């Protein structure tokens, strides 16, 4: 009982911190946190493929980007479109795109998967650039109305207010992260890890590989799309450079690798590290990519399981050392 209580304490603390954060930190840092949260969700959705299923996606921005675009387009063209459905539209778009691509993507793994996702990602990037009538080309889609969060007749919260939007974004991201965490703990989640370790054996045990991989791909696409939708609501501007470009493909990859692909929370840590880093580096230089790249190389060389993996290792060593000390202490 007591153990259970202790387990809840960090979460309660986190909850309280998240509530008072915007009132203490001010608008700049509040928006800073929203960006971090959006990319944390994006990176975790990517890690379903990278860390859990063991395939490297070089085009994950296509799910994020199409989700963002669709939300923006829907809000532009349909007057009075409500907030939550706008978020769902983003998720559905990401999921549908994953569904469309899945017949091809589930057939390949390794380098072929990376190249195929890169190709599709770039294809969609260029298509969005050229399909000016709908996507606005290089200018993108912007200035669409941000609907309030309303339950008819009861409450209506203005989402143009940045603090309100902070709460909305944090709640949506938290719910999504919880769903994804739960997903990895289900029997189906364990199957995905089995595919990473030995896909052939999974099929010889009676599981249909293609369907299993496709579902994971779609789940990953849906949540990347939701991240994109929140991004669209947050920025009130969606343009190809920013949501669909190659930089946005690599950013969540860097986050996942730096935080650690072997853990569910790794990409969240990665998002936090890269955002703080960007915040610090931007005062001295605009070449953030250069700094990110160096950090990436250092992590890959010295902590291949990422920061969370490094932390685990240190913790284990610490425990074994203190256990050893205790045993020698008692014996002497």
């Amino acid at each position, binding site marked *: 009982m007591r153990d259970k209580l202790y387990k809840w304490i960090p979460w309660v603390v986190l909850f309280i911190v998240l509530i008072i954060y915007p009132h203490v930190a001010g608008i700049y840092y509040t928006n800073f946190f929203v960006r971090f949260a959006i990319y944390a969700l994006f990176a975790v959705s990517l890690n379903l493929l990278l860390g859990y299923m063991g395939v490297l996606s070089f085009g994950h921005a296509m799910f994020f980007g199409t989700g963002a675009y669709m939300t923006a387009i829907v809000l532009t063209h349909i007057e009075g479109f409500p907030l939550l459905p706008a978020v769902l539209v983003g998720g559905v778009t990401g999921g549908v795109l994953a569904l469309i691509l899945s017949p091809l993507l589930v057939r390949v793994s390794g380098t072929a998967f990376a190249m195929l996702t890169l190709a599709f990602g770039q294809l969609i990037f260029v298509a969005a650039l050229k399909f000016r009538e709908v996507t606005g080309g290089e200018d993108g889609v912007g200035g669409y109305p941000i609907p309030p969060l309303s339950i008819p007749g009861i409450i209506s919260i203005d989402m143009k207010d940045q603090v309100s939007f902070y709460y909305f974004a944090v709640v949506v991201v938290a719910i999504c992260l919880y769903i994804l965490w739960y997903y990895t703990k289900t029997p189906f989640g364990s*199957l995905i890890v089995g595919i990473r370790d030995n896909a052939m054996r999974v099929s010889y*045990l*009676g599981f249909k590989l293609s369907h299993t991989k496709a579902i994971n791909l779609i789940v990953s696409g849906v949540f990347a799309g939701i991240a994109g939708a929140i991004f669209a609501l947050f920025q009130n501007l969606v343009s190809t450079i920013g949501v669909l470009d190659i930089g946005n493909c690599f950013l969540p990859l860097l986050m996942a690798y730096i935080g650690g692909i072997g853990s569910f929370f790794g990409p969240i840590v990665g998002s936090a590290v890269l955002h703080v880093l960007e915040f610090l580096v931007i005062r001295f230089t605009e070449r953030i990519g250069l700094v990110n790249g160096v950090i990436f190389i250092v992590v890959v060389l010295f902590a291949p399981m990422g920061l969370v993996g490094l932390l685990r290792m240190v913790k284990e060593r610490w425990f074994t050392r203190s256990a050893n000390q205790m045993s020698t202490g008692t014996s002497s």
Partner: protein
Amino acid sequence: MNILETKGLYHDFSGLEVLFNINFQVEEGERHAVIGPNGAGKTTLFNVITGTYTPRRGKVFFKNKEITGAKPHRLARIGMGRSFQITSTFSRLTTFQNLRMGILSKRGIRFNLFRKLDKMKTITNETDEVLKRINLDGERDIPASLLSYGKHRSLEVSLAMSTDPELVMLDEPTAGMSKDETHTAVELIRRLTEGKTMVIIEHDMDVIFSLADRITVLHLGEILAVGTPNEIRENQAVKDAYLGEMEEE
């Protein structure tokens, strides 16, 4: 009754013929060994039957239903299990997690997204029972890749059995084992395949003669002889092609 039967099976790799008119039969409940020199086509025969490859010509029947070219997962679901010559477990998962994968399949839990696996007590208990039965309960939480060779091979065979198949195909389960390990493995196989049909590829003649009810000898992609262990031991053609060579060694 034949549980497994192939009719006029041919297979080649880019023109190199590996299987040549194979009419292979396994009766229900028997322990059937497939032997033959290296390159005789034993593993290819396994691969063609279990869905790794589709045969170029010929048909495969399982429980009187045609299964030619059926995918591995489909065969697993209708009761065929197999193990591999080169150990093929989930190396980063623990022994427990490895076997749990098979138990999930056996129970038909494939797309469950609404319950936590750790909370599914029946699955956990059943997996722990299996671990005890195969004497790997002491290695429950060790990643498969860190198991000793003998135990890793035991896990390999147990994984094939974990889905509770009617017919299990074991591809050299004792390959590379010491004499002691082989002895333990043979006992394990005997115990696990009790009341089931088994097809086994082996090189160790002691294992074959102690385990098998019937033997099929493959040579250069063709069936050279079929019979009981004694019949095979006395068969002149087999002696010339295979056993003689083994005895000289």
